[in-house]
């Protein structure tokens, strides 16, 4: 009953989306405001409908309706309540439904908030967003329906279908298969939604960009209108990536947080182009340049958002052949190709109108620095893209699958990242239009000497790895130049207004949120770089089989095996929990409990590390195997991950910086609204 209701709501939502897209296009073409109002209502209507579908599915998940294929495949009776809710995005069909719901939510927000301000764009914003939404709802309705029931047909096979197949008997399994144990983690509550919110929010700036192209408005109104969407989307995508890393570190038990897995790359690719976009729109707003370039970047970001969903959802990763067999793979492929070609066509149609208002003056200028930043981000994106699709391309072209792993990515993107971080330190000090090398040299002298001192200090401390020295040196340099910028601004303000240092600092940031929010994000990147360099270059590990009382030594740490408990839990796990003591330089510092959870019904084990975490390093102990105590004892794998906490700490600063940059500026909003209202009667 509820399943039929949910499915029915989706079918209507699909019809509404298609209707809204068609009507909005016609309304703009024939200048019929009433048609446009109707299109808008239909677009808004998709929200309650997709909400209803999501609520129906959640209710089905919560009430153990295992006669539904989806419920059966992602939940079981033993699962706690919160995991049953999160199972909404725990499988293919549900996650596509969830994607659609977010898309519909964002459409509603954009249409309600911006309706009066950006009248001219609205018809085409509706068209673009409804086409995207229609595509995703279409996938759910036609290919990946979470509401289908399980039936046993005459030849004994079990099939999923909405209606009873000929001679089919309804199946009513007593329990479900349960969510994959790797996904049974509190991280499941926040990580996937954050990534999806990040993905979906980039549809908004893309829709406005396309509307600007279609309505032939070459100014940067679309960028100003969507600036906050872009920032918020970017924040969520960044958070999703960082939290995904944290989840991997806590659950996957391999001692690291980023493995260049295709699924990770799928989310990282749009982040890279979006970051390039965030930077280069500043050039368009300030100098009226790079208009075509910004269009290219937002089109690429949109394509990569869909591509990311495609990569993780189409089965193309396991094999090109699996892709061809999956129902939704080819649809995705066609959708990406069509939207990309259509966007590019619109862009080339407007090519001449998007000419920059100014031209680049000098190789040494802020504009050039931004350009270089863009090239580096796109370069990294190209490398990651190539590495991700290379196995498929080689399989298609030669029949021989050639895969690349983390060494490829580290080797190929490492120098590009280093250059990018270095540029991050220099660029804010380079003057607009034309900078003087001498003046720049004077500004950079102190940070440069400071960085050299840090490198010398590290060498004295015995560090000889040149890659790490370079990484730390650049980090120190950028931290100093960025802090110097804060100080320079504060000092100028103190001189001009006579304010006290703290007051001057606070008003400085309050008056230039975008700029100092950006610099705060730069500092966050430096903190994360320190963590990444430390944990990449100086991770050490050891492993061994211990009887109770025996110990392993790793660096300054000694880990002794004290004992092992085994017990069953209510949710069907057989747990082996070791107790180990960690000593540092001979002094006891902590007791850890690395665990091995064996999910009995699924036969899948999970290794949960015992971690002692400090700002200096993490001691990360894994219980790899265990045998009955009388026999050989247990095998442990131990990592020491230096500075890894800096990665997470940097994540915190990152959020802070983005919030500062995105915080609404009341004065600016009033100004723009007044301008829009004044101009409104002239349009449409």
């Amino acid at each position, binding site marked *: 009953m509820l399943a039929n209701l949910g499915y029915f709501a989706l079918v209507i939502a699909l019809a509404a989306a298609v209707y809204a897209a068609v009507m909005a296009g016609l309304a703009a073409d024939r200048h019929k405001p009433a048609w446009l109002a109707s299109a808008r209502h239909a677009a808004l209507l998709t929200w309650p409908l997709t909400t209803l579908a999501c609520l129906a599915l959640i209710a089905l998940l919560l009430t153990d309706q295992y006669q539904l294929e989806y419920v059966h495949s992602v939940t079981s009776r033993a699962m706690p309540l919160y995991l049953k809710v999160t199972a909404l995005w*725990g*499988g293919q069909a549900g996650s596509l439904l969830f994607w659609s719901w977010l898309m519909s939510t964002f459409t509603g927000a954009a249409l309600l908030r911006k309706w009066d301000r950006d009248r001219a764009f609205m018809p085409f914003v509706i068209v673009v967003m409804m086409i995207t939404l229609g595509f995703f709802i279409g996938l759910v309705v036609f290919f990946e329906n979470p509401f289908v029931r399980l039936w046993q047909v005459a030849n004994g096979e079990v099939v999923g279908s909405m209606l009873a197949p000929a001679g089919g008997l309804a199946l009513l399994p007593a329990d479900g*298969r349960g969510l*994959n144990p*790797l*996904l049974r983690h509190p991280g499941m509550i926040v990580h996937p939604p954050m990534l999806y919110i990040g993905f979906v929010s980039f549809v908004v700036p893309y829709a406005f960009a396309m509307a600007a192209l279609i309505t032939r408005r070459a100014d940067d109104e679309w960028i100003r209108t969507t600036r906050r969407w872009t920032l918020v989307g970017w924040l969520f995508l960044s958070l999703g990536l960082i939290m995904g890393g944290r989840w*991997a570190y806590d659950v*996957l038990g*391999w001692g690291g947080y980023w*493995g260049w*897995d295709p*699924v990770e790359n799928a989310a990282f690719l749009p982040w890279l182009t979006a970051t390039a976009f965030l930077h280069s729109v500043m050039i368009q707003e300030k100098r009226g*340049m790079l208009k075509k*370039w910004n269009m*290219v970047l937002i089109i690429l970001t949109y394509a990569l958002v869909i591509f990311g969903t495609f990569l993780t959802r189409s*089965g193309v990763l*396991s*094999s090109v*052949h699996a892709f061809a*067999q999956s129902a939704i793979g080819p649809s995705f492929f066609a959708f990406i190709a069509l939207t990309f070609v259509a966007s590019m066509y619109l862009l080339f149609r407007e090519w001449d109108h998007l000419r*920059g208002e100014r*031209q*680049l*003056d000098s*190789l040494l200028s802020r504009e050039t620095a931004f*350009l*270089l930043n863009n*090239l*580096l981000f*796109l*370069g990294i*994106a*190209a*490398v990651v893209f*190539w590495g991700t699709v*290379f196995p498929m391309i080689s399989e298609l072209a030669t029949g*021989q*699958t*050639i*895969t*690349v*792993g983390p*060494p*490829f990515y580290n*080797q*190929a*993107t490492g*120098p*590009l990242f280093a250059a990018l971080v270095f540029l991050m330190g220099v660029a804010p000090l380079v003057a607009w239009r034309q900078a003087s090398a001498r003046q720049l040299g004077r500004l950079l002298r102190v940070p440069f000497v400071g960085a050299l001192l840090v490198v010398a200090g590290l060498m004295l401390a015995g560090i000889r790895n040149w890659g790490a020295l370079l990484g730390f040196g650049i980090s120190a340099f950028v931290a100093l130049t960025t802090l110097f910028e804060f100080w320079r601004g504060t000092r100028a303000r103190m001189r001009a207004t006579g304010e006290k240092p703290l007051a001057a600092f606070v008003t400085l940031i309050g008056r230039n949120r975008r700029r100092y929010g950006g610099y705060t994000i730069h500092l966050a990147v430096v903190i994360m770089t320190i963590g990444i360099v430390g944990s990449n270059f100086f991770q050490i590990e050891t*492993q*061994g*089989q211990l009887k109770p009382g025996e110990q392993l030594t790793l660096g300054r740490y000694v880990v002794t095996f004290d004992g092992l408990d085994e017990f069953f839990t209510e949710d069907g796990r057989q747990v082996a929990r070791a107790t180990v003591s960690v000593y540092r330089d001979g002094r006891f510092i902590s007791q850890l409990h690395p665990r091995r959870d064996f999910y009995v019904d*699924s*036969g*899948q*084990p999970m290794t949960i590390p015992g971690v002692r975490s400090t700002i200096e390093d993490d001691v990360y102990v894994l219980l*790899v*195997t265990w045998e009955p105590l009388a026999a050989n004892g247990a*095998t442990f*794998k131990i990592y020491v991950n230096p500075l890894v906490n800096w990665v997470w700490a940097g994540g915190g600063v990152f959020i802070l910086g983005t919030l500062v940059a995105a915080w609404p500026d009341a004065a600016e909003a009033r100004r723009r609204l007044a301008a829009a209202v004044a101009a409104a009667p002239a349009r449409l």
Partner: protein
Amino acid sequence: MAETTVGSQAFAPRSGGRAKFLVGGLLIIAAIVYLVVTSLSSTAQYFYTVDEIQAKGASLVGKNLRASGAVLGDTITYDAKTLTITFDVVHVSNDAADVEAAGGLAAALHNAASDPNATRMTVVYVGPKPDLLQNEAQAIVTGKLGEDGVFYADELLLKCPTRYEEAVPAQAEG
């Protein structure tokens, strides 16, 4: 990398200065291409089946290889002192259509492991014994082929055909 070429036309500096920017942009693109090509040639792993490895034999010695096969349970030996694991894998097709025709991965692995004529390869790996290492599991090994025809693995991933629909990140296993 089409995006970078589109980009270099997108900015229009003063005609006299344009060459400088083009040259600079091209240099950066060349550097990126160079990085990709060198990294690829030194780190690419060639995916082969056990059949292919046995057929090509010596020509593969020293290359970065990746191979997959079905584990034979009774060949597994484990030296707990040196943490050395030795086991045999037998050929399994890596063509999804063949696997599908056999009735899924579990059936394909089972057929392979029970076929006395299937090609075999011995694998040596140093590390703790993963408990997914069991009869008829799919082992995906990364490493090099020794002159003795033994596969020395640096990395051992194991897949037991599970009942979950989700593809999990590869590093999760093994």
